[in-house]
């Protein structure tokens, strides 16, 4: 079966489809605001005339490419192209600033490929049982898992925990605006219809990271950097040995990404930050994180790319998509006569395995394309900020608008930009705000759903083995961080 599927791939059209898909994805992903969902929706009509297998390879190539493309702008400009690459910017940008942009991009590329291959193998081997496992995650389990994720980001994300907590709460507060998830009543909308949709993630992201940079640079009025003092582009070589040293980080990050990807509704941003926090807390030199640590780039990249394979598990095995991107992919599969669901593997096994194998092998063109693209992209870091930032600002206006084709989102972006400026000036970390915004609404929804099904009894949060394991993890992470805090305080006094 696997061999027959492989033979299907030996076709010029399929290679062409993979190449076009990945390239389009990388480019669209790199533009702030345009993410995989839009890229795929854009290309679906193009695939109408194609055979099912090349069509799906094209679209899935776009999906993978877009997730990776977001990291290019995150590393080079400190402007994440997609929310999931915000974690990559934390160490990627400092490294690029040292003139090692090429190295940062290569680290990101190789880690992405690792994450992709890992999750793809999981998808091929375990789609059915893992989809069953995902179903065991009901509202109570999701609520406890999200609480754990929030805690990990606050405790191990680096910087002041108090500041991180404040930012998470600000994010949760921003997420409250809009319609209540359970009763559907408006909250803090000030009788405005536009506010009922709430603050969308992507406009807030663009505002916080891109627009605030414009304000910040206006404030600092960076003196013109002369060409000869610009950071020199340093060697971008990444050795196999270096990647090998990070094997455990890559493996854990990919596991987190794949696993969270399987669960509905969390997306790829949260696992990227969780992996970053894990890599930091496991590292022997956590103080290098945030200043251009190699593992700080590899961990979130492996993780957010691993989400793609994980998210396809319930989509294909049950016909239940976890988020907007996989919902669009589900529609595309159906249009090509490959209806996802319990019958997909029985009826269209050959095609599906061919598509999976293509996903695996697409790592080869991804690496080649990536390396070629970097040669050109890297020079972006040498453009003067005063020339680059106005262009980014105009792109930000466009990106925020394109989310819902709505000017309200552009206002949100602008507001987020100003607040981002204030927070960055004050030294408050922005990533926890993003996580709070992403998880606040679903967390509240899950808690209340769980209480509705249990008739208001809190026991439901300690009822199943899954919640018990998660609760133990929560207690463990709190005790570790308290322990580490006191130890570092004492050693600080001694030294």
């Amino acid at each position, binding site marked *: 079966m696997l061999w027959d599927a492989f033979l299907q791939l030996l076709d010029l059209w399929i290679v062409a489809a993979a190449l076009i898909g990945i390239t389009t994805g990388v480019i*669209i992903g790199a533009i702030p605001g345009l993410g995989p969902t*839009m890229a795929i929706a*854009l290309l679906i009509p193009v695939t109408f005339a194609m055979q099912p297998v090349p069509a799906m390879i094209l679209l899935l190539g776009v999906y993978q490419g877009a997730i990776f493309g977001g990291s290019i702008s995150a590393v080079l400009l400190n402007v994440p192209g997609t929310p999931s690459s915000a974690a990559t910017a934390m160490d990627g940008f400092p490294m690029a600033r040292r003139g090692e942009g090429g190295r940062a991009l290569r680290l990101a590329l190789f880690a992405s490929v690792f994450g992709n291959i890992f999750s793809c193998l999981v998808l091929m081997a375990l789609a059915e049982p893992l989809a069953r496992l995902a179903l065991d995650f009901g509202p109570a389990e999701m609520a406890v898992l999200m609480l754990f994720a929030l805690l990990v980001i606050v405790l191990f994300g680096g910087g002041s925990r*108090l*500041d991180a*907590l*404040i930012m998470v*709460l*600000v994010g*949760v*507060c921003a997420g*409250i605006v809009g319609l*209540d998830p*359970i*009763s559907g*009543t*408006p*909250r*803090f*909308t*000030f009788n405005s219809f536009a506010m009922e949709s709430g603050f969308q993630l992507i406009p807030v992201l663009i505002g916080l990271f891109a627009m605030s940079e*414009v*304000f910040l640079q*206006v*404030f*600092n*009025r*960076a003196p*013109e950097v002369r060409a000869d003092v610009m950071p020199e582009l340093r060697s971008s070589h990444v050795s196999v040995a270096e990647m090998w040293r990070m094997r455990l980080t890559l493996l854990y990050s990919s596991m987190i990404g794949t696993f969270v990807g399987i669960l509905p509704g969390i997306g790829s941003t949260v696992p990227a930050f969780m992996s970053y926090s894990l890599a930091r807390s496991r590292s022997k030199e956590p103080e290098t994180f945030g200043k251009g640590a190699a593992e700080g780039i590899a961990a979130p990249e492996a993780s957010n790319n691993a989400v793609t394979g994980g998210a396809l598990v319930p989509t294909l095995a049950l016909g239940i998509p976890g988020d907007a991107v996989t919902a669009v992919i589900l529609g595309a599969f159906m249009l090509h006569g490959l209806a996802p669901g319990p019958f997909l593997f029985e009826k269209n096994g050959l095609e599906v395995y061919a598509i999976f194998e293509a996903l695996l092998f697409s790592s080869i063109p991804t690496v080649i394309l990536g390396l070629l693209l970097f040669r050109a992209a890297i020079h972006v870091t040498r453009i003067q900020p*005063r*020339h680059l*930032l*106005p*262009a980014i*600002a*105009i*792109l930000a*206006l*466009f990106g925020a*608008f*394109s989310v819902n*084709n709505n*000017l309200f989102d*552009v*206002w949100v972006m*602008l507001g987020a930009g*100003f607040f981002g*400026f*204030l*927070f960055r*000036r*004050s*030294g*408050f970390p922005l990533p926890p705000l993003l996580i709070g915004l992403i998880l*606040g609404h679903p967390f509240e929804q899950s*808690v*209340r759903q769980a*209480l*509705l099904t249990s008739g*208001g009894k809190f026991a439901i949060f300690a009822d199943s083995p899954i919640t018990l394991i998660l609760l133990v993890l929560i207690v463990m992470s709190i005790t570790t961080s308290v322990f580490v805090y006191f130890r570092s305080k004492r050693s600080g006094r001694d030294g």
Partner: protein
Amino acid sequence: MTSKTKHFQLTMPALTSILLLVSSLVGIWIADSEIQIFSFGDQWPDARTVPVVVLWLLAAISALRLILNFGEQKTPIGPVHRYGQVFIVLLAAIIALWSMPHFGFLPGAIFFGIVATLALGERRPLLVLGLPLIVAITVYYGGRYGIGVPLP
């Protein structure tokens, strides 16, 4: 710890904490009127519970942040005229957005781009005018006809 006599200094983090404290208190204040509860027979917690709890938490922790970092000296607020420049850019963005429904995306984006370039310290006329023009036109036509985003 070098404990000299601590006196309060309005630093940037302190200012932001005060801002957050005040906004969360205002949020709690208006929560009752901004969140209506229809009794559809659903029990506690209702639509108001979580927002109020989160706002109280935010208020408490912002206050805690203020108290704990009382004598902190780092990141002063900075020169006022710099904020003036930031506000000019912000104002330009607001004007640009305001005008978009009437005059379209292009004029607004170009105007905003020019103000931002000037504020960033560029003075050469060719770059001040040319750069935003080229970028805005590329984005507009690329977005509208390339990927079908109906920009105003």
